[in-house]
Every structure is written in structure tokens, then in C-alpha cells.
């Protein structure tokens, strides 16, 4: 399995107009100047999959993730992560879409293939594809050293979780 594309609307520096970011198999490099919005792509993925705290997404709380310009905030931030399945998830569908919408009041709605799910249901579902909160597959900017800075006990717990 892999992420085929993202659909983003009103999330951080991605404006109100819906945009698609094609990803796909293999090795994809994301490039561009400082402040362009590259790290915001990783934030969008982590946001939609429910695998990072607001703080890790550089937001005081979820409503800070909503696009804002000239003092005007959009009504919501919305992200879809489109997976190609190929057996990554224990469901028959070839395409699995995980999405999340957060409104200005901070309320969040998670969906799997359009169906609303609770956050706990989503995290159980994603763990079947090896996707976890504080997993080792998402390394945010400045974060790589965390693996070395872990305490020995945290490191053992990481191995236990993987075992």
C-alpha cells in the first residue's frame, strides 16, 4: 500500500480552494523555498490520520490549523489521505480514504471511506497498517534526533510495540 494523493482545503497555508497533491509509490522529494508549505504537507497527513498532537503540528490548538488570511479564518480545515490498499488494510476496498475536518470551534470529524468514525476506531484501523501515534515512520522537521534522545526504557517500549 501507499498514499496515492492528498486532498487539502483550508489547512494551514493551503487556502480555501481545494487542492490535490499527487504522491504515489516510490521515492518522492518535496522541494521549495523556506516558508513555502512543505512541512505543512507532513502536518496534513499527521492531522488526517490523528497521529500527532496540535503542539507537534506547531498549533496552539486544532483551530490554529485552519487557513487564515487578512485576519479572516476559513470555516474549516479539511484533509483527505487517499491510500491504495494492496493488502495494507484488512478491508476489501482497493482505495481507502481517511479524512478529517476541523471546524473553528475545534470540533473534529474523522471518516474512513466517507463513514464517520470515532478517533479510537480510526487508530485501531490504522494500526493494522502499521500506522501509530508516535510511530517511527513520520519524522517531523528537527525531530530525527529524538530516536537517540529517548530514554532506554522508552526505546525498549518502542521495540515491544513493534514486536
Amino acid at each position, binding site marked *: 500500500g501507499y498514499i496515492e494523493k492528498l486532498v487539502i482545503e483550508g489547512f494551514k497555508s493551503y487556502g480555501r480552494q481545494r487542492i490535490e497533491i499527487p504522491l504515489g509509490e516510490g521515492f*518522492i522529494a518535496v522541494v521549495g523555498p523556506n516558508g513555502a508549505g512543505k*512541512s*505543512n*504537507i507532513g502536518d496534513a497527513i499527521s492531522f488526517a490520520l490523528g497521529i500527532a498532537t496540535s503542539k507537534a503540528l506547531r498549533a496552539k490548538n486544532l483551530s490554529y490549523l485552519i487557513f487564515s488570511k487578512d485576519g479572516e479564518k476559513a470555516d474549516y480545515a479539511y484533509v483527505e489521505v487517499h491510500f491504495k490498499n494492496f493488502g495494507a488494510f484488512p478491508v476489501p476496498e482497493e482505495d481507502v480514504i481517511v479524512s478529517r475536518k476541523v471546524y473553528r470551534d475545534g470540533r473534529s470529524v474523522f471518516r474512513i471511506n466517507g463513514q464517520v468514525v470515532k478517533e479510537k476506531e480510526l487508530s485501531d484501523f490504522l494500526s493494522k497498517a502499521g500506522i501509530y501515534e508516535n510511530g517511527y515512520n513520520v519524522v517531523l522537521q528537527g525531530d530525527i534526533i529524538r530516536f537517540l534522545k529517548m530514554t*532506554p526504557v522508552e526505546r525498549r517500549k518502542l521495540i515491544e510495540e513493534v514486536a
Partner: protein
Amino acid sequence: KLKAFLKAYEQINKSFSKIFARLSPGGKAFMQLEREDEPFEGGINLVVKPRGKEVQYLEAISGGEKTLGALSLIFALQDYKPSIFYYFDEVDAHLDEANARTVGELIKERSQTAQFIVVTLREVLASFADKLIGVSSRGGISKVFPLKNLTHSPY
């Protein structure tokens, strides 16, 4: 439970050492149980010995050496229990050009079995990618567009 843990631990340790030796030729790295007799009573130490040097207190090794150690651990975990995608944001920030190149080659190989989405400010890592995504900001709004990777011919 202990049996499952030890099996995972030994396999990941083996991969970790192998990968670090490739990223840092002549260097050695391995994990160590604090309590070999009672693994769950202690944690796991990381021991990293760069080439020509003896084992150092982990904090004392350089920024680039730490990055190589951390990447080796991530790739070792991938060997044992792969994730379907990896997202790396500026992991090459503290790598010299030669190490960035070695990491680029390794990601390229491993991208045959997992998706790697890698944010980078430097050409070295980007030159190994199959696909380039350009991002820019205009009037405070981010735009995304596909780019041609001029450093290789497509296969």
C-alpha cells in the same frame, strides 16, 4: 511475551548494526539490554562507535553521526515491521554531502518496498527521487506543482 520481544530485539539489533555499518563505513553500532537477565526490568541502550573512534557516551557523538544512528534505527525497524509510508522532513539538515548521498542511495533502494516522502532543501537527496513535488507560497497561499527531475533519466 518475553520470547516475542527477544526475537524482535535480536533481529532489529542485527539490522541496526548492518545498516549503520553501511551508512558509516568502518563504524559500529548496536543495542544493549540494560538488564540481560530481566529485559523488562531495564531499557535498551544504543551504543554508537564511529570509525576509528572508541565507544563514546552517546551525547558526545557529532550531529551528523547522531542522524546516521537515528536513520539506521528507523530502517532496522522497517526491516522487521515495515510501515506503508515514511515521511522524512529535512533529515539531511546536519549531514555532509557524502553522507547525504549515501542516505539518498539507501532511501532509493528501500523505496522499492515502501513509499518515502522526503522534504529536503538540498539537491543531493532530491537527485535520487523518482518524482519531485515543488511547493511555493504566493500571497500567503501554498501552491504545489510537479517538477522534472533533471538529474536522472526516467526508467
